[in-house]
């Protein structure tokens, strides 16, 4: 893996500096729905919807700007590269305004200011403040303000994590005693997981901003003006209050110390929907609720696999025909294609199609790029499968066909090809099953398919095993109808084509 990653980085540096014009009538905004409440996440009741206070903010902003907001899913790590690939115009997803990031992108004025909060297991009453953490193991998100603050106290044994949830799980398992996390996460997580509780005063200060490309000065101004409007009109406050996120920092920031105006409806909605169920039956019910999302993702994986396989089957046929009947030049080209494509990793091919093609002006949607990448990769394999099928048909069949006045092409198409089906179906079924599994690779080019959705849900509901089993089961199930179909075809063909005595 390491080598591919290094290669990716090289490619990225080559490819990224290209920017694309933005469409004025829509506001394409990106976030990672595999995130946590309350930022941007899947509606626990209607998992096809994404909700979150940032979603509300973007809606309100676009209304003021007069543009239609279009959501673009992207991995959190890739939010900034995606900006420069031109996939969207702004990124908003709890992006803390830091000096490092400012070098890469422009930030809008903060739309939310918050702080850190200590979370402990309920009943751990010996921790009440930052100073109580001395000599203890404390968890924090890697490279976050929380980590920096904790490291500053020498006596604290800091343990860093990729995601907050991992810290909470470790705390439950007794490996750490407390965690220092962003307040919104602390609020929402403790509310839905009563075994945890927040303690102590707010610590530090975090400002979230909207990230834009350096060159989009005009859009930055527009966004900042719209943000000012949101602040002025009280809409921002309303959104934050609905999500129960209004705090003293915001009071100071907006210079608005009036009493609360809206009730935290959305907060309540979330709490009620997600609150940890203790019964097995309720967990099953929860899984049933996920089902539509899983099924939708499975459908995407399926559609992706089907279309890719279709492409592979068609392109493979052409390659096989080129190789068998295309003469020297076409035959050589076909062999070259087959050996190069089979010889190099799919991951790199996908990455080239998605990130390098735009450099020569071909910018593909992730879905199309995924289909082309998978399809043309598998085409090399299918070409060989076809060839074996063609070789299995006695030459007499071809001769009979051409002696009946068919052109070689007609003979192959009408007479030979249908007879190869029987021989090519089993290996093609093999390849289709491999393809379904390989399709999870396309998440590197921002496609959201089954594996990606699994990661989103598992991290949103803090349930890896159950959802993991569902996902594994779905993958297995995805292949089955086609195995059945293939078997059915085989049986039918076997009846029709019993070798004549």
């Amino acid at each position, binding site marked *: 893996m390491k080598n591919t990653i290094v290669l990716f980085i090289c490619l990225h540096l080559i490819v990224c500096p290209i920017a694309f014009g933005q469409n004025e009538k829509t506001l394409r905004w990106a976030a990672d729905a595999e995130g946590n409440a309350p930022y941007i996440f899947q509606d626990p009741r209607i998992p096809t919807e994404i909700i979150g206070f940032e979603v509300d903010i973007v809606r309100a902003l676009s209304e003021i700007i007069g543009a239609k907001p279009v959501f673009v899913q992207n991995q959190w790590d890739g939010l900034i590269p995606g900006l420069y690939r031109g996939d969207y115009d702004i990124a908003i997803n709890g992006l803390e305004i830091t000096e490092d990031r400012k070098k890469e992108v422009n930030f809008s004025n903060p739309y939310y200011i918050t702080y850190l909060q200590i979370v402990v297991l309920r009943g751990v009453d010996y921790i009440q403040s930052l100073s109580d953490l001395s000599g203890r193991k404390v968890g924090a998100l890697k490279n976050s303000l929380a980590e920096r603050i904790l490291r500053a106290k020498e006596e604290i044994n800091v343990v860093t994590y990729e995601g907050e949830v991992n810290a909470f799980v470790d705390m439950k398992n007794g490996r750490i005693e407390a965690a220092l996390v962003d307040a919104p996460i602390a609020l929402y997580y403790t509310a839905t997981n009563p075994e945890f509780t927040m303690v102590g005063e707010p610590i530090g200060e975090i400002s979230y901003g909207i990230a834009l490309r350096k060159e989009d000065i005009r859009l930055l101004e527009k966004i900042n003006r719209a943000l000012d409007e949101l602040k002025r009109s009280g809409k921002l406050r309303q959104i934050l209050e609905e999500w129960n996120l209004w705090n003293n920092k915001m009071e100071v920031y907006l210079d608005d110390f009036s009493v609360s105006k809206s009730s935290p409806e959305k907060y309540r909605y979330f709490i009620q929907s997600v609150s940890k169920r203790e019964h097995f039956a309720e967990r099953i019910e929860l899984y049933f609720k996920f089902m539509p999302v899983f099924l939708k993702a499975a459908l995407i994986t399926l559609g992706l696999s089907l279309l890719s396989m279709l492409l592979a089957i068609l392109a493979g046929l052409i390659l096989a025909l080129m190789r068998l009947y295309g003469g020297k030049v076409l035959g050589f080209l076909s062999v070259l294609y087959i050996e190069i494509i089979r010889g190099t990793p799919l991951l790199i091919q996908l990455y080239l199609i998605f990130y390098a093609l735009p450099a020569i002006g071909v910018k593909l949607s992730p879905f199309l790029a995924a289909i082309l990448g998978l399809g043309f990769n598998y085409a090399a394999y299918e070409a060989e499968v076809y060839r074996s099928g063609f070789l299995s048909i*006695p030459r*007499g*069949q071809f*001769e*009979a*066909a*051409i*002696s*009946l*006045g*068919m*052109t*070689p092409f*007609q003979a192959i198409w*009408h*007479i030979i090809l*249908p*007879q190869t089906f029987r021989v090519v179906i089993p290996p093609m079924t093999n390849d289709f099953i491999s393809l379904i599994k390989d399709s999870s690779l396309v998440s590197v080019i921002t496609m959201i398919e089954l594996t990606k959705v699994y990661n989103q849900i598992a991290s949103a509901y803090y349930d890896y095993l159950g959802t993991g089993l569902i996902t594994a089961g779905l993958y297995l199930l995805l292949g089955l109808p086609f195995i059945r179909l293939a078997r059915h075809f085989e049986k039918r*063909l076997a009846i*029709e*084509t*019993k*070798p*004549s*005595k």
Partner: protein
Amino acid sequence: MNVILEIKNLTRSIGSTKILKNISLSVQQGELISIIGRSGCGKTSLLRCINCLDAFDEGYLRVGEIVIERGRNCNHRNKNNNESYNVKAYHIRLKVGMLFQTLNLFPNRTVLENITIAPIIVKKEPKEKAIATALELLCKVGLKGFENRYPYQLSGGQSQRVAIARALALNPDIMLYDEPTSALDPELVGEVLNVMKDLDCEGMTQIVVTHAMNFAKTASDYVIYMEQGEIIEMDTPEKIFYNPSDKRTESYVRLFKE
């Protein structure tokens, strides 16, 4: 009269063995020619060359107006004209129909489809017309009611008759039959013979490789006797069977007069 098929000095070798040597032949439209000879003498090979399934090494082949010439003197030209060879071969095959010794029925298609597929694809006949022709032909070869069977459901003789019907369905100018009655009982041999005679009357040119001497004797306008890749003699049946001019022919036909 109209010479529809003309062959001059045709030679074909596989490796170092010549399997066709210096074949010359001319057939007029509407004739029925029989080819006889020992097993392995090159009868099938000759038919395959006429139908351009195998390329000959040297010689001249004309079918209708289409001429293919190959050989040492025109080797160079032909290499560049490979494309044109394929095109010519295609046009020859359009005019010539062939019944294979191994039949080569399409195993994944029914009897009816086997017969109609070429007319529909090649001649762009409407489906109904192709089916009507096919049913008529099946009736003629005594296979009424077999149209929906697959080849594996047929007996040897039935398969052979389907293959005959398939080749005839295209109504070619020239028909080549490679042992068309080998798997048929004497009764059916008679029927197939009648079919051929009808076609003869309709003016189709037919070349039949056969081991049935009676058939050669009674039905054909001319008989060709081959031996070891050569045409030894070509003449009327009476001459070949009763008054051959070559000794080798004589010794062969004597064998089964005894």
